[in-house]
């Protein structure tokens, strides 16, 4: 009977079947469920999805420090040496070859000499952290930030590296961090999607929808992409459909489904479909409310820079306000993108050839809105329960590429930061060499970074698994250690 044992293991929901059956019979639409979730759910290691509601809040593995996550992702690879990773030696050696790497060939080819940071570094905050004038407003919040300067990536190509930062694998097709968290924890607010990806007003990030994909997890856990410039598709009843007709049609759907349910009593899929129409209706009600930035005060708009004459900055600032409004309403995981697709550095942080002039543009768009968002979260007390992650796919070289005015891809050492719930604020972890070229102290991987984020959410990255094609898959592959030094 070995096969039968295996089958039972594959069906974690079966023990509750009788209860569901009865509930479904008597409880009408109150007990709504998704059998398919169970069918494809992993075995013992996976979170137990309540068949009555896939988005129901679920218990983490241990007491969490953070209830919600905001990931601010800079697409295109933000230069660490021009922003947060201060290297006096790089200033001193400006114009000289990098010792030992005179002939370095990197992603796009040969490199030239070392080039000093293009913006001046100054001490900021009580902690005196040196950050550059490119992002002065973010710099002022140094006391709230915990930097990691020693991150590395397995790929020096944007697509795979962005995949790595957001899914834990360089390949396409793996579930994103948001999908994992959504799968693990569900959401507090049943009127809004539990995982929202806010695209940059200039366009989609380099790895596109991979960044918020469900991969092989059920589609229920994928991110819903929308922003202040790109609403959810088909959310609004089309003008050609009168409200009364719409209401009548929905009622008819519910009636027909209930009649179906009489033939298939207790059918969790039927019930789940009914519930999905109810949730859709609630989203139609609540998403416009969360998107209605007119409810914000002028003071708030100014704080974020939403009043800027620079239209892209104003749009990005609006996205930042939207992020806060989503978090306020209990959305579990919000991804906020800064920077769009491959464009020779014009629309994102990929400063190969004209780094200074392009970064001046991008810096203005990023700085005040993100700083405003952090300040706003803090003043509203939301940083106590929200983890803020600031990330990019890799860094840039301390030298210019031969024959250009920009820096090539550098996966050997780059900077990200954390802020908010459970984070050891005002500190830095790990270090690159004196030029900002390679991580040399407390070298960290994206897996470590992910393990740390999951840990703050109360999740053990080794226990959050899902079976797919032969392996109990994890966000952290088979690697990753929680970076304890970054925890408060």
């Amino acid at each position, binding site marked *: 009977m070995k096969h039968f044992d295996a089958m039972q293991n594959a069906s974690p929901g079966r023990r509750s079947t009788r209860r569901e059956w009865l509930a479904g019979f008597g409880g009408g639409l109150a007990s709504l469920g998704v059998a398919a979730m169970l069918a494809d759910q992993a075995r013992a290691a996976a979170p137990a999805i309540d068949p009555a509601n896939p988005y129901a809040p679920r218990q983490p593995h241990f007491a969490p420090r953070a209830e919600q996550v905001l990931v601010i992702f800079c697409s295109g690879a933000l230069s660490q040496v021009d922003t947060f990773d201060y290297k006096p030696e790089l200033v001193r050696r400006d114009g000289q070859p990098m010792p030992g790497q005179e002939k370095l060939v990197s992603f796009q080819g040969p490199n030239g000499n070392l080039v000093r940071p293009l913006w001046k570094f100054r001490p900021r905050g009580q902690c005196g952290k040196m950050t550059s004038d490119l992002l002065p407003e973010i710099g002022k919040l140094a006391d709230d930030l915990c930097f990691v300067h020693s991150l590395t990536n397995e790929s020096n190509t944007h697509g795979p590296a962005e995949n790595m930062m957001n899914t834990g694998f360089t390949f396409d097709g793996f579930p994103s961090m948001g999908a994992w968290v959504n799968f693990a924890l569900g959401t507090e607010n049943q009127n809004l999607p539990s995982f929202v990806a806010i695209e940059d007003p200039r366009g989609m990030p380099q790895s596109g929808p991979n960044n918020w994909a469900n991969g092989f997890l059920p589609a229920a856990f994928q991110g819903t992409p929308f922003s202040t410039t790109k609403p959810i598709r088909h959310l609004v009843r*089309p003008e050609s459909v009168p409200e009364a007709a719409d209401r009548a049609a929905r009622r008819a759907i519910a009636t027909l489904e209930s009649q179906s349910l009489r033939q298939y009593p207790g059918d969790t899929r039927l019930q789940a479909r009914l519930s999905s129409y109810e*949730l859709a209706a609630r989203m139609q009600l609540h998403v416009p409310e969360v998107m209605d930035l007119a409810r914000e005060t002028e003071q708030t708009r100014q704080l974020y820079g939403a009043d800027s004459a620079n239209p892209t900055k104003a749009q990005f600032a609006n996205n930042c306000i939207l992020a806060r409004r989503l978090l306020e309403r209990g959305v579990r995981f919000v991804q906020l993108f800064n920077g769009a697709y491959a464009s020779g550095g014009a629309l994102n942080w990929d400063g190969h050839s004209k780094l200074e002039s392009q970064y001046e543009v991008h810096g203005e768009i990023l700085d005040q809105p993100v700083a405003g968002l952090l300040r706003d979260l803090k003043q509203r007390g939301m940083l106590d329960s929200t983890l803020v992650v600031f990330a990019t796919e890799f860094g840039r070289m301390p030298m210019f590429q031969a024959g250009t005015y920009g820096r090539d891809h550098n996966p050997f050492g780059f900077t990200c930061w954390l802020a908010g719930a459970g984070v050891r604020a005002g500190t830095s972890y790990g270090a690159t060499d004196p030029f900002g070229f390679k991580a040399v102290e407390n070298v960290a991987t994206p897996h470590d970074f992910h393990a740390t984020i999951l840990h703050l959410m109360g999740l053990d990255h080794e226990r959050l698994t899902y079976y797919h094609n032969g392996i109990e898959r994890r966000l952290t592959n088979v690697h990753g250690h929680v970076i304890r030094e970054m925890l408060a």
Partner: protein
Amino acid sequence: MACLLRFSAPWFAVGIASVVVAAPGREVDYQRHIRPIFAEHCVVCHGEDTRESGLRLDQRGALLRGGDSGVAALVPGDAEASYLVRVLRGEIDQLQMPPDGPPLSEEAIARIERWIDQGADWPGQMDDTADRLESDHWSLQDLAETTPPTETTGQSHPLDAYIAQKLSEQGLALSPPADPRVLVRRVALTLTGLPPTPEQIDQVVSDPAGFDVAYERWIDELLASPRYGERWAQHWLDVIRWAETVGFETNLERPRAWPYRDWVIQAFNDDLPYDEFIYAQLAGDTIEEDAALGFLVAGPANLPGQIGRDEESMRQARQDELDEVIRTVGQAFFGLTIGCARCHNHKFDPILARDYYSMQAIFAGLTYGERRFRGEENDAWAAKVPAATERAATLRSKLETLRQQHQLRPPLEDLQVETFAPVTARAVRMEIRATSDGSAASLYELEVWTAGQPGEPPRNVALAEAGGRSDASSFALQNQTRHHENLIDGDRDRRQAFPWIAAAGGPAWVQIDLAEPATIERIVWDRGNAVPADYGLRLLPVDSETWQTVAATDDRMLREDDRRAADAVQLRGLSKVEIAELVSVVAQTRDAAAELARLSAGPQVYAARFNETPAPTYLLRRGDPMQRDSVVPPEVPTVFGRLGLSVDHPEVDRRVQLAQFLANQGKALTARVMVNRIWQKHFGRGLVDTPSDFGKKGAAPTHPELLDYLAAEFIEGDWSIKQLHRKIVTSKTFRQASFPVEKALAVDAESRLLWRFPPRRLEAEAIRDSILQAAGKVNLKMGGPGFSFFNQRGGLSDYVDRETFDEAGWRRMIYAHKIRMQTVDVFGVFDCPDGGQMQPKRTRSITPVQALGLLNSPFMLRQAQFFAARVAEDRGSELLDQIDRAVRVAYGRSPTPDEQATLAALAQEHGMAHVCRTLLNTSEFLSIR
């Protein structure tokens, strides 16, 4: 299968037979000299109980196999090649053994080396078997001989006998037969992905021959329908994550990929035997099935331009490309996660890292790209080649006549050498007035050669390393270096180096100042993105401030690719009329040559290409392309036995051998994997619930004997998939009702034992196709380039969803141009795979975003209107007739009185379009029941 011996030891306790080579020197004795060293320094961590990194040093076999890394720790007779020795010597980066304390003494290491060189004699353990890996895992065994328990169960159909037996063990039984109308709809949706029309259903259920006969005829009709291949091909495309873009950050289109999709559809429709289906996809080049080779390159792959220029990135990218191929082949045909052994021996299954690289060696000649697409079109093109050749030759000879008549020098080459009387100069300048296609001036390299002397060969004094300094009118600031220093870097390798490109089209110049005056007699330029068509080369003599022209183009015949207008061309001694004639003949020649090239190359298809002399394949330590170990031969995984090919076995035969292996020695697993896929698409779940993982981490079969019975029947039936369908859909198991049964639900909620037909939601494609069918708008055009869901067909900028479609967009969804990563509007959220990872089975989510799309999208509203209009056309103005018709179209049955009442109220108040919109949103329409 190749499970000849069975040991009680775990599968990994295997060995490779050694040839003992006697080495010179004093005989080292294992017991006396070696064992004490191992015992003192190694066995604490690498002993029977500890086995750190999967390695133990107390067994010769274990050393031969090596640890988790898959690298042989011991190669008898060759200490140099033995990983053990290299580790002890401290030659392996970041690996020190013993880990704490001092390294072994040089004497001890030398002794171990000598012992290995002498053959590593190990008393009592010299019988280790060669290349023999054991496994008692169920899927790797031969098919069990099994007789359907028809007598004990009273079931005449063999499938039902197995199912009923298992059910009765649990006190369960098959459900009663489904309603005939439900069954007719079920089998049509299962086999073709389209619901039957009401007329088709009526015909089957009222056939005077009786339902059983009519049902079998109906099955024949469905299997003979081209709609069948269109449904089942989709499943195969999921399994191998086929798509028409490259994925990753560019996600560019593969515009000639669609013939593979058509080939798969055709293969299913033709009932191509599965062994031939495999063969064509692995070695289609040998049988003129070029499109089938799209299989091997179905996955995502980074474009060369997206790969780093450093050696490690290039090797890594090549490994990743081949990894996609191994994963495709491993999962699709073997149903094994061979790809998991890339960095170390498989953690769970008997697959060694060496096996992974041996599989890689089978495909070592493969590259991604397009190949000649042989077939009718190709033959038609080939027939035109002689005439095109003649036309091009005639025009070329005309050009040559003109050239001689006008006394012009031959046209410029791509790599042009200009030779002239020696000049002692201090600088060189090239003034480019125009390029052949009007784009920005560009050169890869500019060389300035001295006149050689006896004993002093000519030198390129332009080189930066010779002190040359470059300058130019401008250089482009693109994403990569286009600087003029590229002209004098001495590197013309298109993969590694870059050209100079001017910032814009129009006149441009470059200049090289020499470190010291030199006597120059030759200048060589190598074209960049453009060819300079009109230029002057000048030298600055050492004793003068006046530039001296040493070469020009005004006496050069035009190149065929020179696209300048006649009035932009000046040639010495030619009138405007003569130039116009010349330009015209050049253009005709260019067009004729292009046409000849196109016809000669033949039509192209995106598919695997093969290099006849592949590079050697290395076992890579930890999967690191920079850590090459030994060269491995092309092979199937060790556990299956040996093909016995050499490392330089002819390329094409490696793939042929693999295909033959799958159909012969390996057929038990091959058949099990495929029959399970077919079963899964009938019942929603496979007998094995992990359809591409038949390994230890996969699920065990719910009905192992049934699986083996089906596999044996499949093989005996000459691998006919249609026969398999017939067997399944004629069973009572398939024909039973799908209603819940409380007692059975309590025991087996998901109906894994099939006490009912498991009802389930349709897949995205079947939903869209069914909507179009209901609305009377489905366009059944087959084959060719797909229609688009978006405003663009590839790339990764912002996609805009198409809101409305015309007839071209009302084709079945398998003909949608498949873009990796990008979720298709409305239907993508019904768990459409994104083409990233392989999806041998689909999840079946239920989400609010699905509801929004089905309720509010312009597509749905429009189709609901078409549906309503069509119903009115079918049945006239009477509302109840229309409702009856609409329900029969959507559900395949008449409405119940309750339904009729609900829908009539809706229709009266708001119109039939809302009735149709309602029906298209209900579970009964969206499900197989």
